[in-house]
């Protein structure tokens, strides 16, 4: 029986309770023994992306304390947060320091959810049933920083009844960009509206992505555009029976 530590991510924690619950259900069904380190907060990416390296370091320390003691893999419902830990933590600490070694160790066992299913658990079919037309938006960090180009589609294609339809300009950013969305709201708006236009033109009834931030952005955009489309985290589709 494998083990994992759940990294809730702050957006997951604040806005996506049922997605996190579904993540627990799927992993437990795959016989993964889970822990949720109570001391976790955020990976620190919002600070890092605004240039505050010093202040990011303190947040990263909290993360390393929360997850470092247990040597089980760390699984996040977000490619962006997983990538922060995987690719940006070690650089925060001087080479040779204990923190640097710990950051490298933690980075090596941090995984995005679909990556964990496919590459660690070697699972492509979780027995889900979702009889809908679905279109999929690959989130940028998930796609380019983690290089996860096929994983989500592999999982979606295995869902019974699910028809995956193409999304025009699927690899174009939705305009979320973390702090970007509030630093340059009007540019974020144009990008989001363009994405929502493509999503609505896809003919799907459900939009799926692997990133809570992008999901918030696009779901809000769809709501504002008066669309009835559902916008779901991939975990919620994979938990459907």
């Amino acid at each position, binding site marked *: 029986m494998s083990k994992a530590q759940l990294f*809730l991510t*702050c957006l*997951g*924690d*604040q*806005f*996506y*309770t049922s997605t*996190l*619950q579904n993540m*627990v259900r799927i992993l437990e069904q795959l016989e993964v023994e889970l822990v*949720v380190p109570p*001391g*976790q*907060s*955020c990976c*620190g990416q*919002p600070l890092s*992306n*605004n*240039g*505050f*390296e*010093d*202040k*990011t370091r*303190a*947040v990263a*320390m*909290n993360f390393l304390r*929360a997850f470092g003691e247990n040597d089980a893999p760390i699984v996040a419902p977000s490619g962006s947060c997983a990538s922060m830990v995987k690719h940006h933590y070690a650089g925060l600490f001087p080479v040779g320091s204990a923190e640097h070694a710990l950051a490298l160790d933690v980075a090596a066992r941090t995984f995005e959810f679909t990556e964990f299913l496919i590459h660690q658990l070697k699972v492509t079919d979780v027995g889900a049933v979702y009889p809908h037309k679905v279109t999929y938006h690959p989130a*940028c*960090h998930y*796609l*380019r920083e983690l290089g996860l180009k096929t994983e989500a589609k592999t999982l979606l294609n295995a869902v019974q009844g699910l028809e995956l339809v193409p999304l025009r300009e699927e*690899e*174009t*950013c939705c*305009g979320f*960009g973390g*702090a*970007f*969305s*509030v*630093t*340059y*709201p*009007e*540019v*974020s*708006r*144009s*990008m*989001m509206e*363009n994405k929502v236009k493509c999503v609505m033109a896809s003919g799907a009834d459900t939009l799926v992505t692997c990133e809570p931030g992008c999901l*918030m*952005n696009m*779901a*809000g955009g769809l*709501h504002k555009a008066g669309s009835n489309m559902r916008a779901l985290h991939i975990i919620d589709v994979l938990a459907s029976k």
Partner: protein
Amino acid sequence: MTSPLHQELIIMSETPSYIAFEEYSERVPASIPAAVQQATERFVAGRAARVGELPQWEELRQIGSDIRQHTLENLDIYLARLEAAVLSAGGHVHWAGSGEQARQIVLQIAQANSVKAVVKSKSMATEEIHLNDALEEAGIEALETDLGEYIIQLAGTGPSHIIVPAVHLTKEEVAALFSKHLGIDAPTDPTELARIARETLREKFLSAQMGITGGNFLIAESGTLVMVTNEGNGRMCTTMPDLHVAVVGIDKVVPDWESLTVFLKLLARSATGQKLSTYTQFITGPRRAEGEFGPKEFHLVLLDNGRSKILSDPVGRDVLKCIRCGACANVCPVYKNVGGFAYGSFISGPIGAILSPQMLGTQAARELPFASTLCGACAEVCPVKIPIPTILLHLRRRVAEGDEFSEPTISLPLRATAALASLALAWNWIYRFGARLLPAINPFFRRDGWLSGLPYPISRWTKVRPLPSFGSRFRQWWRARSAERKGEKR
């Protein structure tokens, strides 16, 4: 023609003291992103087709990146070689530490030769130093001859796209400009307009005493200036007048002709989706034979203007690997939605966002490193693999925390917010406590299950799209469930 606001946004005749990206981005006329997107779509498709034909593309990119890196790391040696080679080919070399020095050098050459009229081919270096203004002030006519540059010179605006600088103007607007400036009744057919430009500019090429160009590459081995163009105006500028002055950044050096093969294969494919641009010129000094076509004198102005300073930043210096293809802008969703003007300088898009802060300082260009979602599309297409998102992050750090040239320049409210956030996120009990309070605000702002109209700073989110309700019930659920399971086990 263009609205006054439009004009105000896009005239870039002087080095900006502050680039107000947010303000610009919110006032860009809708026609600009629409036109820019037509161009970027075409170039993206063209690039993809060319790249698809070359199985060795990724290897070429890696080699291109390695050679650029190597050249920057040995730049002092290669520049010295270049200078010696240009001199031995009978050319002149001038070192310009600043834009002002470069302008003075060019003016002196012009005045020493009683130059009245100059023909110019498209050059980012001369735009960077605002050379045209200096020439005009000295009473020398400086005419841009690339069709797009000619049009925007008539319009008095800056470029909206690196490859097609006048793409924001419609054919009707171009016709109106031609009618006004040439005293004719210009038709709106692009082919006819190009013919009119050909005839008008042909006379200028034949009469100008000096041609000013930039350069795509400088070959250190032989002192050769390499120019890549499509229209033929670049050839005119280097063939017709008796004087040729090339103003080129010191970062444009390549070690030798062998290295150049790599960049010629990467450049046009990445830029316009051509295998090679129409005309590639390799110019080593002035003409040799009396009576041969070509200039009697060749002057190379090597422009530093902050580049040697950029080299001191081991992360930021990678920006100097750039070969100016524009592929990063073509795929950039931010650029596509704001166009070139919002970047407030001669260079726009992602590469502008990492170059301008390093050239102009983190005060003047402090907004630019943040003008990106860090989506990474740029780095994916860069022919010399510049890690643009990494440099954006690095420059954000220089803005937020200060660097060797400046104190932190990020706004005070942001610094205060960051300090608070750091405290709350690093002390996880504060975070957890806050998370439990947040759902209490839901009832005040909820409509149809979404929150809207939240106060500043979240208003900057909700003015664009609503926010999901605060939930944060997972931890409670997990604790209860764990307790229940423990109970069962007992």
